[in-house]
């Protein structure tokens, strides 16, 4: 299976490991990630304004490239996923945004939300299947107690993202079980880490991350996993609990026995 793949700015710089482990794992699982040619940064935050068109176009370009190739578009960074999936929803369901964006794009055939956007975790769940993933695990992470940290971007708004139940998600816990470890459910797993606020209001973000880590540690987690480079950055600023944070792709690569291939 071949997918169009949108890595985004951070996966090319501060989070190259998130990307590299995903690519190695995809290979081991038998699917191919074809990077969007000349992709542009998604902007990190979904442009909420109904009259913001230009800032949605980088997403539309990536979406249209996948459409032309007849492939689903796979994302990995939570922010890229959030922005691109929401813009796609606009292109499908909001006639005003669709018309105005297409006026900019001047495509041979107008883009109207045809592409299916999948997060890498959704590929694991819906395309590969967690049962199949489990069979391909050569190095199960037996006995590890792992807290899934969802944050906000993957889940909300639930009606648009359709990723999982936004109040009681299970996809990362199911992933943790598939790689042989034990998920730890804790109340703060879908609370916000502070996001962009940490640029200027470091104390505010730190307080939020302290609560998240305290909550996870209190329920017995030995580590947290995330799909988001900004969550990773913010959580690492908190020294509340000695709780390491990993990208879920690193543990996936480890379980599939391909971690050492990644340099």
């Amino acid at each position, binding site marked *: 299976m071949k997918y169009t793949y949108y890595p*985004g*700015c*951070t996966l090319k*710089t*501060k*989070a190259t490991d998130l990307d590299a482990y995903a690519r190695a794992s995809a290979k081991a699982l038998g699917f191919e990630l074809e990077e969007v040619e000349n992709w542009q*940064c998604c*902007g*990190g*935050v*979904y*442009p*909420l*304004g*109904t*009259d913001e068109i230009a*800032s949605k176009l980088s997403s539309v370009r990536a979406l249209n490239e996948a459409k032309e190739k007849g492939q689903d578009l796979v994302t990995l*960074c939570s*922010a890229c996923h959030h922005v691109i999936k929401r813009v796609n929803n606009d292109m499908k369901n909001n006639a005003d945004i669709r018309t105005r964006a297409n006026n900019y794009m001047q495509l041979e055939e107008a883009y109207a939300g045809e592409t299916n956007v999948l997060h890498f975790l959704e590929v694991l769940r819906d395309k590969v299947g967690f049962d199949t993933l489990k069979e391909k695990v050569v190095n199960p992470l037996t006995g590890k107690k792992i807290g899934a940290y969802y944050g*906000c971007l993957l*889940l*909300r*708004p*639930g009606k648009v993202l359709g990723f999982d139940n*936004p*109040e009681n998600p299970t996809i990362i816990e199911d992933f943790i079980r598939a790689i042989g470890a034990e998920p730890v459910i804790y109340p703060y797993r879908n*609370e*916000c880490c*502070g*996001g*962009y*606020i*940490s*640029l*200027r*209001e470091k104390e*505010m973000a730190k307080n*939020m991350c302290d609560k998240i880590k305290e909550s996870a540690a209190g329920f017995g987690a030995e580590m947290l996993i995330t799909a*988001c*480079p*900004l969550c*990773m*950055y913010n959580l*690492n600023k908190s020294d509340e609990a000695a709780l390491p944070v990993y990208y879920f792709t690193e543990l996936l690569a480890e379980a599939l026995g391909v971690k050492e291939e990644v340099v």
Partner: protein
Amino acid sequence: MSHANNQAEKIKAISGVNPLKCMKCGKCSATCPAFNEMDIKPHQFVSYVQNGDIEALANSKSLWKCLSCFACVERCPRDVQPGRLIDAARQIVVRTKGQTGLAPEEIPELLDSEVPQQLLVSAFRRYRR
């Protein structure tokens, strides 16, 4: 139309929100992780727009405290989407010439070697036009 009403209409247009749908249950404020940091609380935003008191909104520090985590949007039983309203008020400010939530000269001292690009692009989108 007065300037204040005009600004209120602009916020409604940018956000796509109809504040009259709000039934004042306060769930948005109850669920907001930035509630303690805000001077005008999420459930009050609706009233400010209804009353056309946009100047107070524009000067509120809440504009810069909203995290866009969509907890209020997800949990609003009337689909009012207070987060969109706050964002539109913020946009009214940053779209005004000379007004911004983050000055370029502030940026260097805010950075450390670990700052992910995602943080920078997100902050620029939020604080600046």
